[in-house]
């Protein structure tokens, strides 16, 4: 079974994340980045499926030069090869534009049996690219899988909701997005680090995909960030002195916030 995993290079949540002042896109230059942690679950699930059977895992990412680090990590974990689409014109693309680039890349890679995505990127957190991508590829989409199995020509997933867990089946080929409940992603091993150096990474531009620059990028995106403000620092809490009426004051507070 051949699997394509879509991964994203995101700013490290540990560092001070910000936006560019000029065009209000995510600042990816001045902040250390890494493979989005939510995508590690998709990589792990792909590796497990291939290890249990046969086939290969291809990771694909869209992003600037540094995004090569994200595919490197996936290769170190065990993926077989990678495709990195990097083009100045992609800068500022929103989810529909990104899904267009990914769709054309996956078509060029070949026809995978399964496309895996994470739940959401940890920077944009829109969680819509998997659905848009499935639509563009004409594939069935089963999203937010917390369990995944492949039986014959079908995948079966479990999707956990607030009140019920659904078991859903879809025929292959299809697209599945996975949650952080589905597995425990492995760490790369040192052998994996050494092996990754020899694995093929192809770097493609929009021209390689036949995508017109007029379809992507900030100017051609359907959505745009108009302004941003930093989240204000947390304010100091209110201290109530207990003068024998602490209990009722606590109840008043909780009631005022509709907790009780």
């Amino acid at each position, binding site marked *: 079974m051949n699997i394509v995993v879509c991964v994203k290079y995101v700013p490290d949540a540990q560092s001070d994340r910000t936006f560019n002042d000029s065009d209000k896109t995510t600042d990816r230059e001045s902040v250390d980045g890494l493979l989005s942690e939510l995508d590690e679950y998709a990589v792990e699930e792909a590796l497990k499926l291939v290890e249990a059977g046969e086939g290969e895992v291809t990771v694909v990412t869209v992003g600037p030069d540094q995004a090569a680090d994200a595919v490197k990590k996936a290769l170190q974990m065990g993926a077989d090869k990678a495709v990195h689409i990097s083009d100045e014109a992609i800068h500022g693309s929103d989810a529909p534009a990104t899904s267009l680039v990914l769709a054309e890349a996956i078509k060029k890679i070949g026809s995978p049996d399964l496309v895996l995505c994470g739940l959401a990127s940890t920077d944009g957190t829109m969680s819509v690219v998997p659905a848009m991508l499935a639509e563009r590829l004409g594939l069935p989409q089963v999203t937010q899988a917390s369990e995944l199995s492949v039986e014959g020509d079908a995948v079966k997933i479990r999707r956990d909701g607030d009140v019920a867990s659904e078991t859903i089946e879809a025929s292959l080929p299809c697209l599945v997005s996975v949650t952080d409940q589905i597995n425990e992603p492995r760490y790369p091993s040192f052998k994996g680090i050494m092996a990754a*150096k020899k694995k093929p990474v192809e770097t493609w531009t929009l021209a390689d995909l036949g995508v017109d620059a007029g379809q992507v990028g900030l100017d051609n995106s359907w959505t745009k960030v108009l302004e941003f403000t930093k989240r204000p620092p947390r304010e100091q809490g209110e201290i109530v002195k207990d003068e024998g009426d602490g209990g009722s004051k606590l109840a008043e507070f909780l009631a005022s916030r509709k907790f009780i």
Partner: protein
Amino acid sequence: MPATRLMPTEEAQDLIDLTREICDKQLRPKADDGERLAAQGEAHPTEAFRTLGRAGLMSLPYPEELGGGGQPYEVYLQVVEEIGAAWMSVAVGVSVHSLTCYPVAQFGSDEQKSELLEGMLSGEQLGAYCLSEPLAGSDVASMTTKATADGDGYLLKGTKAWISHAGHADFYTTFARTGDSGPRGVSCFTVPAGTEGMTFAEPERKMGLHADTVRQVIFDGARVDASRRIGEEGMGMPIALSALDSGRLGIAAAATGLAQSALDVAARYATEREQFGKRISEFQGLAFLLADMEAAVTSARATYIHAARLKDAGRPFSKEAAVAKLIATDAAMKVTTDAVQVLGGAGYTQDFPVERYMREAKVTQIFEGTNQIQRLVISRQLLKSL
């Protein structure tokens, strides 16, 4: 603050990144509770060693063809330092484990290498190093544990002391006397766990480093096959001493990491704590204390990396290893003590990790050759060369 490192290769930098990720997610968050539980009983960071082993971090300095990572000491030791900054007991364990594999890797026959080393370097096994005895510490050549010939094997009798991983290890690299008293009568053996006649005393109740379980190992007629003798009879002392040169570097690196962590906590605290209307880091008396701590950590790192580069180049490094062990462990003691001072009363409580770091630092001046022994090694080599 992660230490600034200049790694020799891209894969070495990737290795440091991997180590930091595992430390941040698997070791650092578990160290406090792990130490507390271990102090109360038998908890042992087995899972931590397995995680490191699966990632290939338990066998870095050994050749790739033997199943190791093929990394120079310069790289391996910086990995140990990162682990020491996250959880000292585990870093000491990694260093001890590396030490236990050394005799087979360096002095073992081809059969022994293929039979024993694969498991030792697989990351699935943990080794213990049985050298010291209750009455033979610094004067290790006075050991009395005997290995008496018995058919195609030996019977071991005697007591080994201060043995890390005792009771948890999969194999015990053991030194015992096959000949006369004195340094030439000692041989080296690899004793598998579960060998009949090998038992363990209660764990020592130590000042710190609790997750590094230390017990006496008691051999009472434990039989070990002749095929598990490493090197010729009588080769034990040279094997033990050459392993120790490398082991000292592991301890120097781990101690540097411990000192770095103490400095990190102290520096962060000094920029948050306010007295007399300003941050205490703005008082020069305190800022200079932090500067001295930084200088101590940096010089500790420099000495062990220098010794490692000599070793990697195949040059003599015994004196430099002793210098590194002395400088790094004294730095760890000084920096952790000063870190408690910077935090004041808070530093003396278990609400902050620096009192633990201070207790952990003390033993680094003692084990793997006391710092008095290091001075002996340094001065002898210094004067010999004149």
